[in-house]
């Protein structure tokens, strides 16, 4: 179908399209056949097995089933929940929280975690905001600073993030410290650095604001509008970052090594994987993600204070776990993380739509994370 439109195109391009098309078609028919086969297998089972298989299926997908049920229930009570404005709100929120979760996901694949993520976002947001204040803003942190091109600022915050990650990774890999302890320490250090940074010049610990319009519009300008509701630019950035991360996780030697180290560090060492480099790189990549989050967050909130980024890691870790990145190590998919972040946002927004008491919100959040972890571990403990 697609190649008809491209009749006037270069023949080689046509061939390529054909190739991809055939590939996709094959994949789909493969998938279809396997689903059919599975269904056939299932129908052939005696009723007792059928029941237990069904129960297995329901439990293994309980999280998704529960959430689909919740969406239907919320939409039934509050139809506005599925209005374009609301959906775009959910998508934007998801996009804003995705990069940090993608970063932490790597650390979790290594059976670790990264609780310095939120503060790393805070620091990089401070840096991005301070470098991109309006030239004539009264409270400018660096009054003499000429306007800096935005790409340069992005590179700078990525570099700062990578540096933070490198420190985390170095201590984890070199001294075999648990990432929890390492990142707990860097979290504190980073907060100190944030407080010091905010006292540079005449700022005196004040909130950073008066951001340059070019920065604000780079991040928050409408990408396009649907039903008169703008989708912000950072949704696009989030999509690009997700695609890049998917390639890194699935299509590179580094990605494979990351899963190998997470699945069995000793076996990885014996197999010739450079464990040290892999761990450091995973944390550096995570740091880069925090840098990007910091950059986006800077313009998204438009006023950056010392608490910016605080506790961001807890939602990100929860999203990863809900999305099937297991603390057992060695398992996890980018798609799972995206779904995890999305589900978490759906829940939060949905509960707000239902006007659930804020106090209950925290309890429900805790229960959801607990439930997700329990269901996840169920897959790894011996079945009886």
């Amino acid at each position, binding site marked *: 179908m697609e190649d008809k439109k491209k009749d006037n195109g270069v023949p080689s391009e046509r061939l390529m399209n054909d190739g991809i098309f055939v590939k996709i078609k094959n994949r789909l028919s493969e998938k279809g056949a396997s689903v059919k086969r599975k269904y056939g*297998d299932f129908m052939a*089972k005696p009723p007792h*097995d059928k029941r*237990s*298989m069904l129960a*297995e299926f329901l439990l293994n997908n309980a999280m998704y089933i529960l959430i689909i049920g919740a969406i239907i229930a919320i939409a039934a009570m509050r139809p506005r929940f599925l209005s374009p404005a609301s959906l775009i709100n959910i998508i934007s929120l998801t996009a804003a929280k995705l990069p940090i979760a993608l970063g932490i996901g790597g650390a979790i694949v290594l059976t670790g975690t990264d609780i310095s993520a939120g503060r790393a976002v805070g620091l990089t947001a401070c840096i991005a905001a301070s470098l991109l204040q309006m030239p004539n803003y009264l409270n400018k942190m660096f009054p003499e600073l000429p306007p800096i091109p935005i790409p340069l600022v992005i590179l700078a915050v990525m570099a700062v993030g990578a540096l933070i990650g490198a420190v985390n990774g170095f201590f984890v890999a070199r001294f075999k410290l648990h990432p929890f302890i390492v990142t707990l320490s860097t979290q504190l250090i980073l907060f100190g650095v944030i407080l010091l940074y905010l006292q540079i010049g005449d700022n005196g610990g004040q909130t950073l604001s008066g951001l340059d319009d070019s920065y604000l519009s780079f991040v928050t300008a409408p990408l396009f509008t649907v039903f008169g509701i703008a989708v912000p630019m950072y949704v696009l950035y989030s999509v690009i970052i997700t695609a890049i991360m998917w*390639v890194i996780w699935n*299509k*590179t*030697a580094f990605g*494979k*090594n990351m*899963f*190998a180290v997470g*699945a*069995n560090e*000793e*076996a*990885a*060492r*014996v*197999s*010739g*994987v*450079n464990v040290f480099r892999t761990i450091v790189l995973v944390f550096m990549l995570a740091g880069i993600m925090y840098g990007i989050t910091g950059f986006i967050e800077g313009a998204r909130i438009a006023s950056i204070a010392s608490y910016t980024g605080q506790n961001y890691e807890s939602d990100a870790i929860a999203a990863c776990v809900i999305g099937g990145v297991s603390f*057992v*190590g*060695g*398992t996890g998919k980018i798609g799972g993380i995206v779904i995890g972040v999305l589900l978490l946002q759906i829940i939060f927004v949905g509960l707000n739509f239902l006007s659930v008491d804020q106090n209950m919100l925290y309890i429900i959040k805790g229960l959801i994370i607990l439930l997700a972890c329990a269901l996840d571990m169920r897959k*790894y403990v011996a*079945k*009886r």
Partner: protein
Amino acid sequence: MEGICKSFPGVKALDGAKLTVKAGTVHALMGENGAGKSTLMKCLFGVYEKDAGRILLDGREVSFKNSREALDGGVAMVHQELNQALKLSVGDNLWLGRFPSVGRFVPLTSEKKIRRLTEELFDELGIKIKADTKMSELSVSKRQMVEIAKAVSYGAKIVVFDEPTSSLTAEEAEKLFEIIEMLKRRGCGIIYISHKMAEILRISDEVTVMRDGKHIATRAASELSTDEIIKLMVGRELGGRFPKKRRQPSGAKLEIKSLSGIGGVPKDVSFTLKEGEILGVAGLDGSGRTELLETIFGLSGRASGEIILDGKAVSNRTPRESIRSGFALLTEERRANGIFGILDIKENTTVSSLKKYSRRFLLNESGMRRDTEESIRKMRVKTPSQKTKIRALSGGNQQKVILGRWLLTEPEILLLDEPTRGIDVGAKYEIYELLEELRAAGKSIIAVSSEMEELFGISDRILVMSGGRAAGILETASADQEKIMALAAKYV
């Protein structure tokens, strides 16, 4: 136990299995991996709930819900993989869950009583281990002794041994047989699961063979020969226990010159490995066999010495360097540092050769799939697909996948540490055949093994280690068990 049935979704693991153990006898339970031996035992211990059938103990029907209940009911098990609290002391492990208290009304644990009870128990069994030693400081065989002592201390009527000698040296195995003999005299019924024919025939009174979850035969051990048992287990005749040698070793390939490890083991080891040769390595547990391989491979630190491959010294400071210079190491602890359990076969196969598939940043997926397919075929791995997670495979098939992983790196020298541990007879033969093919292709192999038969069956020469040192090298043709034992004791 009679008419035991157990199904898992999609598999009928047990189909009318039965087993009768008489008091005061050793009953061997045999079968290939996947024949249902472990499942049967797990049903006995209540780890699994049986679908049908009865279990009778002294004529009474019993149904244990967990291994704790089984223990209290007089059924104990010495596991293949020991489940012990390694950071605790021997005494703590023995009395875990039933610590003696200081007095009847003082609910505090009495260290003194633990020590005294442990010493009494060990004296009775002739075990020489101190009660306050940390479990992690003991060798695997000694840990097993502790486990057996624990079973005895519960006054068990039935003791199950699951592959008890797989990690023991010949001498330690002797010790174990003595203890089993003693248990027999006490009137215990013993279920003995093992793949080693020689010891089965030696110690057991009766043999039950299982295949595909079914009971095949129960015979007196005196009526059976090794070949007959194998026939019952496999369901067909095997050509021989070991494949024929297809090639004679030629010129020198690898030279190890006074190699010493940082920990003092190995100590000043020198030998030469020929092209197309299989060099067996024998020795007692703790004689430094594993350390020798790990030091050559750069997994353990090297204090001094040279490794010369094809006349050129290689550095081999880290596994990565060793792989690059053409070495491969199949480790002893398959689960601990061999397989990536939750990853699939493709990932397990290609992990050591990812560089080969890297085009700039991205990996050549189709190449990886093709080579994995090739490896599965060559290694005769029995698996539904290359996307199957490796932990779903049997031990023998896992080992073949790891062997396939190493062959992808195109090694010159293969270092194999207990390549057939915990693998059933059929799969063992296949692995021997693979080694023979590799030898025929001009690869050189160093194989550590605790099974004498295996060493005699596959190797050209046997290096005997003792106390971290090389005690001597024997031509296999002229070697016998006594000579090896004599050398093994040289530096002890």
